[in-house]
């Protein structure tokens, strides 16, 4: 029952880290908790037999996104010259609304029937690669164009003023 144990470990780490992200007053700590949550999500991907997505998650999310956010915080903190405290407002209303959405989703889940897990497929990574250059080739190219546009736009926004 390694899958059950792994699931509970990943689930507890993921939920605890997510709560820390939205509750800790220190913005820098929130980003570090986000990194923990993203790694735990990678663990969930591993449990779902997707080691490739686990690698992508670590490289792009836990590596890339967290680094960018840390840089942004350090830049703004240095400009303002003090540590940024972050506070929350409407905590009660937010909690009520989030709980309502959760109950709504649970309502849908409870109506759905159980699905049995099919046996693991052999060469998932090969199929993924063939799909990316086969039926999904055009979206993949569009994704590349989107990335270039987004990064050029970010560069344009954040350029040094002259």
């Amino acid at each position: 029952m390694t899958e059950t144990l792994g699931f509970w470990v990943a689930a507890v780490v993921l939920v605890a880290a997510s709560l820390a992200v939205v509750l800790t007053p220190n913005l820098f700590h929130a980003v570090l908790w986000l990194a923990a949550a993203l790694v735990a999500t990678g663990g969930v991907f591993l449990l779902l037999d997707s080691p490739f997505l686990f690698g992508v998650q670590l490289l792009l999310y836990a590596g890339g996104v967290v680094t960018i956010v840390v840089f942004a915080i350090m830049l703004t903190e240095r400009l303002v010259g003090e540590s940024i405290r972050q506070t929350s407002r409407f905590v009660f209303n937010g909690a009520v609304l989030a709980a309502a959405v959760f109950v709504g989703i649970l309502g849908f889940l409870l109506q759905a029937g159980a699905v049995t897990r099919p046996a693991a497929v052999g060469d998932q990574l090969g199929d993924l690669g063939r799909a990316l250059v086969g039926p999904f080739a055009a979206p993949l190219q569009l994704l590349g164009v989107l990335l270039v546009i987004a990064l050029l736009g970010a560069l344009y926004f954040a350029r040094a003023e002259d």
Partner: protein
Amino acid sequence: MPLHAYLVLAALVFVIGLFGVLTRRNAVGILLGIELMLNAVNINLVAFSRFRADLAGLIFTLFTIAITVAEVAVGLAIVIVIFRVRRTIEADHLDLLRG
């Protein structure tokens, strides 16, 4: 674990992110909440892909991960520009477009 366990976990992470987006005052904090919500969607996609033995879910997840990285880069660039102009990243203070 059954599919429902993964879906409930994803729903839990999603509403925690929603709570963060609703309650954070800081623009970077709001972006972190959005990250959590997108992450929950990825868990759902991978879980459905695994349990239905359909590769499309994995490819969708790859795409959402890449798009999220682009979104974070642009979002943080906007935050830095707003900070330069207004000297604040408190979302409540950014009411220039309020009628």
